């Protein structure tokens, strides 16, 4: 019976049905299913299928994003129960993400955020036009493993360096990895400003984040 439930959970993610996923999560709690099992055997299994379908070209970004949203809806229901039982789901890393000061380009950054959370990272999206001080404060407060900086303008990519300097001043630099991206950003720029990682798209961002976490 629980096997059947796990299957439906996976399917809700594959179909990108957030309400269905949340309902199934509630059902699991009512039935006394272990929340961690529901996550791992149900919803995450579904996310894996979504990832495979995307890789082989059958699924597209909206399928991926909606799958991630379904996953999130389920986690919102299950996480309080998980905490109460003293367990924690496996999180690959905590990422504080944002578009740097003076820059209002949003979509690329958000896409990176969605992909990271769909792949098991906990993402705190600070939005756009984010000051270096805010990145530092949030990195501290959220106990971030990674600070991810997006910049789409040749004028604003300079602020990526700024944030790295601020992190160093706050004494966080050896605890926090920094990854950078956005259309004018290159590996050479990342090297120049001493960032730990760069990727040119969201899928690459996941790979880099995993590498930075030693995965």
């Amino acid at each position, binding site marked *: 019976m629980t096997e059947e439930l796990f299957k439906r959970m996976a399917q809700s993610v594959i179909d990108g049905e957030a309400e269905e996923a949340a309902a199934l999560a509630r059902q699991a709690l009512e039935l006394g299913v272990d929340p961690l099992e529901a996550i791992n055997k149900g919803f995450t299994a579904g996310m894996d299928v979504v990832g495979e379908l995307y890789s082989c070209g059958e699924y597209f*970004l909206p399928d991926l994003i909606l799958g991630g949203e379904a996953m999130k809806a389920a986690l919102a229901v299950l996480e309080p129960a998980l905490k109460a039982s003293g367990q924690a789901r496996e999180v690959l890393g905590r990422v504080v993400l944002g578009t740097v000061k003076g820059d*209002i380009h949003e979509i690329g950054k958000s896409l990176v955020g969605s992909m990271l959370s769909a792949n098991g990272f906990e993402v705190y999206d600070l939005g756009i036009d984010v000051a270096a001080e805010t990145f530092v404060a949030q990195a501290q407060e959220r106990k971030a493993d990674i600070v991810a900086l997006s910049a789409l303008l040749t004028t604003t*990519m300079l602020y990526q360096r700024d944030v790295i300097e601020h992190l160093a001043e706050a004494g966080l630099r050896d605890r926090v990895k920094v990854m950078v991206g956005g259309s004018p950003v290159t590996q050479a720029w990342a090297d120049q400003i001493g960032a730990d990682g760069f990727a040119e798209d969201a899928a690459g961002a996941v790979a880099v984040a995993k590498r930075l976490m030693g995965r």
Partner: protein
Amino acid sequence: MIRPKLEFLSPETVRRAIDEAYELLWDPGVRVHYDEALRLLGDAGATVDMSSRVARIPRSLAEKAVETAPSSFYLYNLDGEPVVHYGGDDVHFDPGSAAIEIADYEARQSRVPVTADCEDFVRVAEMLPQIDALATSIVCGDVPQSMADWYRLYLLLLYGRKPIVTGTFAIETFAIMHELLVTVAGSAEALAEKPRAVFDVCPSPPLLWSDITCANLIDCARTGVPAELVSMPLMGATGPATVIGSAVQHAAECLSGITIHQLAKPGSPIVWGGSPASFDMRTGTTPMGAMATMMLDCTYTQIGKAIKPGGLPTHAYLGMSDTKIVDAQTGLESAAGAILGALAGVNMMSGPGMMDFESCFSLEKLVIDAEIVGMAKRLVAGVDDSEEPLALHVMREVGHAGNFLKSKHTRRSFRKEDYIPSEVIDRDFRQTWFDKGALDINARAHRKVRELIAAYEPPPLAAEVVRELVAIATRHAQAVGLDRLPARTIER
């Protein structure tokens, strides 16, 4: 004579799209992250929530703004001639804007451009007769980036004669760019009277006016320098996934911009423009060469022409490609866009020379695109049927002998009956082509680039104007820590 014209929407659908756009201005309204604009809107009767910074604009208010916005205006060249007419179905082309990189033909890769690249760009763009206006297409990497936006304009003003499509990267730089333009025009009044440049101003999809773009919009209105709205819903990402849905969003963003702009100064010129794109759902890129991108451009153009009697001036990013090098895909995408936009009567198309999702500029592509532009302009000139009779006279004159090359009618007609391309377009006999080195279009275009650069001569500009431009640029460069401007390769 019929001007060939492309329209996607029935009059009924145009009306519905416009109605829905006006409705969006009220519910959910537009977000405006700039207090002065919120104040203008509030004072004029919009419902403004200062905490969420949402303005709900009543239809009557937006309609009044559309009414006061002029249906047409001209851009002027250095000599004060009205060479670009924004209005009606006239079509013009300028190179695409603000590339991050330049395709280096010799190195076979793209790289960050420097001052010398921008100079070569002006030389080539000035020399191509098909290209009607310059654009601040090259962002130089050899100056501090906080001066990168106005520095492009400075170089164009030093070396160019054509009108200019430009834009700022920040609030403060508008004043510097205006100062540079005024220096060449003689006075702020002279500049407003005969504007040399138009400023791109981009609302953020969906329905948001950032402080930067809002400030630019108001500055343009008050100085009388034309503003060009560049609304860019990305289908399925920052706008509805349908062409018609994104066209409605585009219309709402433009209407809100026109309202703010006309409240700042009624009657100031403003363009119904944009750079929307389809969204590639596999890669997450914003393809400018996609068919839906071009259809959306043409669709919103039709709406802009119908927004009031006489319409508004229109603009679109068309004639671009997403390739990283110049190849067959580059040609197919660029030609499709330029031709469709010309048929739709887009007054200004920004795109020639641009590739890689607006990220990269290629001089070779610019030269090839100039040929596309030549063909597109020929296309919309239509089939001339003004001769009476149409053919009887010349057919009877030549008779069965059949050699029309001898006919005066041929000599009189052929130059205007077809667009005559440069040698960039291959029309050689086969052996001749081999004998000339068997060059592909990229190589032929590169050769043409070198020729144009060599043939360019700077237009006459009074010595004191040059001195003043240099002084202004030096002063503002020093303010951001650059003691000396990069060396120039063109004598002035």
